[in-house]
């Protein structure tokens, strides 16, 4: 093979680099994040239920928030009718974070685990005491 040694060496370096995340994490504890929902505001609720079901929120909260955003800012409609017919005021700061006042334990645990960095908090103000 023409330049065979160099090519094999290059392939080895390449493989070493792309597999870095795997062997770097070998033996490290891999604890799944548990977002905490035991804020005082949530404790007060008789029925501990978010605007939609927990399963839905876990999977789709980002889509829901995008829809909320577009509805409030662009559509001018600031009331959300949930699938159970209950109505909520669309506001990240004043509706979501009123209950989930523990941004660090609620939002950030999962987001850091998943390595995502949503830009919500560049503008929206997190509740006091939970500042990043």
């Amino acid at each position: 093979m023409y330049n065979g040694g160099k090519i094999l060496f290059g392939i080895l370096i390449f493989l070493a680099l792309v597999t870095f995340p795997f062997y770097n994490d070998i033996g490290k504890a891999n604890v799944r994040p548990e977002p905490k929902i035991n804020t005082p505001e949530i404790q007060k609720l008789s029925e501990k239920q978010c605007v939609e079901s927990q399963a839905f929120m876990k999977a789709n909260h980002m889509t829901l928030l995008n829809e909320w955003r577009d509805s409030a800012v662009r559509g001018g409609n600031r009331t959300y009718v949930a699938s159970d017919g209950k109505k909520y005021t669309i506001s990240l700061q004043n509706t979501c974070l009123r209950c989930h006042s523990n941004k660090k334990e609620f939002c950030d645990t999962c987001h850091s685990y998943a390595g995502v960095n949503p830009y919500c908090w560049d503008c929206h103000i997190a509740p006091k005491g939970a500042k990043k």
Partner: protein
Amino acid sequence: MSINRREFLKIVGASAILALGGVAIADGIDKDNLEVSQFLPEPGALVAGKWAMVVDVRKFKTEDDYKRVINACNSIHNIPDFGEPKDEIKWIWTDTFEHAFPDEYEQKYMPASLERMPFVLMCNHCDNPPCVRVCPTKATFKRADGIVMQDEHRCIGCRFCMAACPYGSRSFNWRDPRPFIKKENPDYPTRTKGVVEKCTFCVERLAEGLMPACVEASNGAMIFGDLTDPNSEVRKALSSNYTIRRKAELGTGPNIYYIIGGTDNA
């Protein structure tokens, strides 16, 4: 099947481009709509065919009258104070007659009181807003009720709207505004560096059935209402006073009217 390296690379490249493009298009079509959801206006929200404002300059008597109005806006909307003009963010501010109406100013023999009088300035929420016309992402757009709105989530910070606005009503966040906000209002967001912002006629307050913050603080010197309603306060003020608008000759259709009056009205 024989395929040389060159053709293989071509096919790989083309498929990569197609795949990326396809993903982008699919994202655009299927907006991940929720299956069961509905969005409604807030009950009790103030609505109008076209919002407009009349500023009765005669009723601004002391410096405190301006400051109260401007502070009402600044504190609610988390307007930063950089302490220097380069980075300045302004939603509502004052300037002299000469600067507010530069084209009317050649007349040099106007009442001295008028010449010194500060004018309250803000976004004109134009009928034909040049800022909306030029925005490449629809980050700024006109609502059905006439409000020229800014979607900070979508703004790419190209500042075309600032070049297009003939009123200097738009401000850009040249740097992170947060450290310069004296007292954060936790109910309203701040902005981030790299986006353009401006007065929104307090859409968030109208949705709650409240008048814009400046209007509420003005003690009647600023009137806000529906221009399409002949019985509205603004229409009454307009039909009983001579008013002027800033640079109306540009065809923008500004919706802030000024009652100037003279010394005899003071």
